[in-house]
Structure formats: structure tokens, C-alpha cells
């Protein structure tokens, strides 16, 4: 690895973002290297499929690049980035509701042809994953986002509140209601 690459590795996120604000592409590459996987995972958990996740991730980092000059150090870079990601994911969901039925919506059941030949345990696991996915998709988007950040990013309520731009009490309420909805939608599956 050359010296310039090492220099970018050593910089803090905020310093990297300052360089990105000056339109430095190497600094932007380093930011993407650090956060691309996490943002993609959030987008995947939130949208439910790889194609949309890739699209969302690209949009989010493009927005990061354009918004870099407006970043102020009052907010941590991590919070700022996740806020952009959250707002974009929420807007995506709202836009999707207004669009015709999406071709990439997963099938309601594992197709019989696909089920043939698959070990029973694995089939059960797939069906459980599908049931959880469908239950999660029915939860209102802000509740779903709060649950995603808590469960898969292991963020504290305080961090989630900073990302969503609300109070800790509001996050508590979002998560409580989200879990109540999740239990309700998973109940028929558990009774089987």
C-alpha cells in the first residue's frame, strides 16, 4: 500500500469529510470503504432485497458527497451519515407505496419447485425468514427503522434518537409499538 493510502486510513471521519468537501475522491473512497458495508446492511434489512439495497446505498453515498460541504462538526459524522441513510430509506418506502406493485417483492411462500430437494431444517429456516420479513414489512416505516437500527446496528436509544431527530422517549415508544406490531404479525406463523 502506498503512503497516500495510509494517510487516508489515519484520518478521522470528520477530517475525511472535510477533504470530501474539497472534492477529494480518494478521501471519498476511504469513507466508502469504512461505511459501505454497514449502510448496505441497513438498506438491505430495511428494503428486503439486494437490488433495492444496492440502489439505496449508491443514492446515500452520492448524497453524502453532495452534502459534504454543508456538514458542521456539531454532529458526529456517524450520526450525520446515518441520518442521511435513514431519511433516504424512509423516502424510498413512501415512494414505493405510491408506485405500482414492485416486481422484486418476495413471493408469499417458498415455491414448491424450489422446496423440493431442500433439507427440512433449511426449508423451515427459509420460511421463518420469509415470515419475519413479511411481518417487518407491515410495520410502519419509522418503527421498522428504529428496530433495524437497534437490532442490527446495536445502536443505543440515544444514538437512534440523534439519527431520527427525535427524543429518547419517542424512540422508546417507536420500539415498543414496533415490537407489539411484530408480535401481532408473527402470531399466526407461531400458531402453525
Amino acid at each position, binding site marked *: 500500500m502506498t503512503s497516500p493510502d495510509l494517510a487516508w486510513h489515519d484520518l478521522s471521519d470528520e477530517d475525511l469529510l472535510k477533504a470530501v468537501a474539497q472534492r477529494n475522491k480518494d478521501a*471519498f*473512497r476511504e469513507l466508502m470503504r469504512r461505511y459501505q*458495508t454497514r449502510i*448496505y446492511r441497513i438498506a*438491505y434489512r430495511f428494503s428486503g432485497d439486494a437490488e433495492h439495497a444496492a440502489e439505496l446505498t449508491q443514492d446515500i453515498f452520492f448524497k453524502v*458527497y453532495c452534502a459534504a460541504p454543508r456538514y458542521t462538526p456539531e454532529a458526529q459524522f456517524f450520526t450525520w451519515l446515518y441520518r442521511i441513510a435513514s431519511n433516504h430509506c424512509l423516502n424510498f418506502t413512501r415512494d414505493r407505496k405510491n408506485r405500482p406493485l414492485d416486481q422484486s417483492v418476495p413471493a408469499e411462500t417458498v415455491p414448491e419447485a424450489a422446496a423440493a430437494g431442500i433439507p427440512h431444517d433449511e426449508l423451515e429456516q427459509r420460511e*421463518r425468514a420469509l415470515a419475519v*420479513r413479511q411481518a417487518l414489512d407491515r410495520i410502519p416505516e419509522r418503527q421498522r427503522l428504529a428496530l433495524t437500527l437497534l437490532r442490527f446496528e446495536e445502536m443505543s436509544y440515544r444514538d437512534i434518537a440523534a439519527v431520527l431527530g427525535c427524543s429518547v422517549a419517542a424512540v422508546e*415508544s417507536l420500539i*415498543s409499538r414496533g415490537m407489539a406490531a411484530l408480535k401481532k404479525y408473527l402470531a399466526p406463523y407461531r400458531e402453525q
Partner: protein
Amino acid sequence: MFCRTVRKKLKAYCDDELPQKSRKAVASHLRSCSACAAEAENLARAWESLQALAEPPAIPDLTQQVLQRIVQYEEQRAQPWYRCAIPLFRLSFAQAAVCAMIVGFFAGFVSSTFAPLPGLVQKTSDDELSGDLFSDLPSAFPGSAVVVMSYDEGDEES
């Protein structure tokens, strides 16, 4: 603490996010209320079920795609303003003629109402400030010439 209040705080309790006082109150209630204790277990099971969600498949490296998009965006921003306005001028001859007439009429109206052109005003002494000052101006001035730019397809860079 009432059951309804406890159940709203159950998740935060499980996540260790409650202040100490609330945490003790919830813990105390759970010891004495079997219904809320059962609800806490249901909550834990539902929480664990989220683990069943499939991991994302191989996460692609999207750096190149994003950088390409950024380059295209910056190239577009670097174009002179009139290149960006090209689509506005893709008018047929008839549309362009109508636009020119409207703009010319409006410019003439504004000119005749507010501002006489220099050179068209009679020189008078300071004492002759009368309504005849602007009598030389025609009643409707056509205004400045309007240049309509029309672009054929292929003029733009692809």
C-alpha cells in the same frame, strides 16, 4: 406501577435503557405479575425471531458506480448555463414565433410605460417639465430584438 405502563417500558427494560428508578419499578412489578412476566418472555421471543432474517448476500463494492455518478454530476454542473437551457429552446418555428411576439409585446409595453429611451427624448430646459416631454415616443415601442436560439438534434454532445 400499572401493567399498561410496564408493558410500554418492557423493551427498554430488556435493553437496559431505563433510568435506575424506572428499572427497579419494572423489575419489582415483573416479580409480582405473572401476566407481565409472560409478556416479557413473548417480547424476548419476538426479538430473537428477527435473527431469522436472512443475512444480505455477498455485499457488492459500489464505489466505482458511485464515483461514476459523481463524475457525471460534476460534468453536468460544469456546463455553461445555456447548454443546460438547450431543452427550453427546442421549439418549433411556430412556438418560437409566438414566444417572440409575447416577449416583444411585453417589453414594448414596459418601455413605453416607464422608461423613454435616451436620444428619443427632446432636450428641454429645466423649466419645461410638461407632459409634452415624451410626445416624440411612438405609442407602442417594439422593444429590443429577441434572438431565438433553435438547436437541431445532434448539436448537443452525446
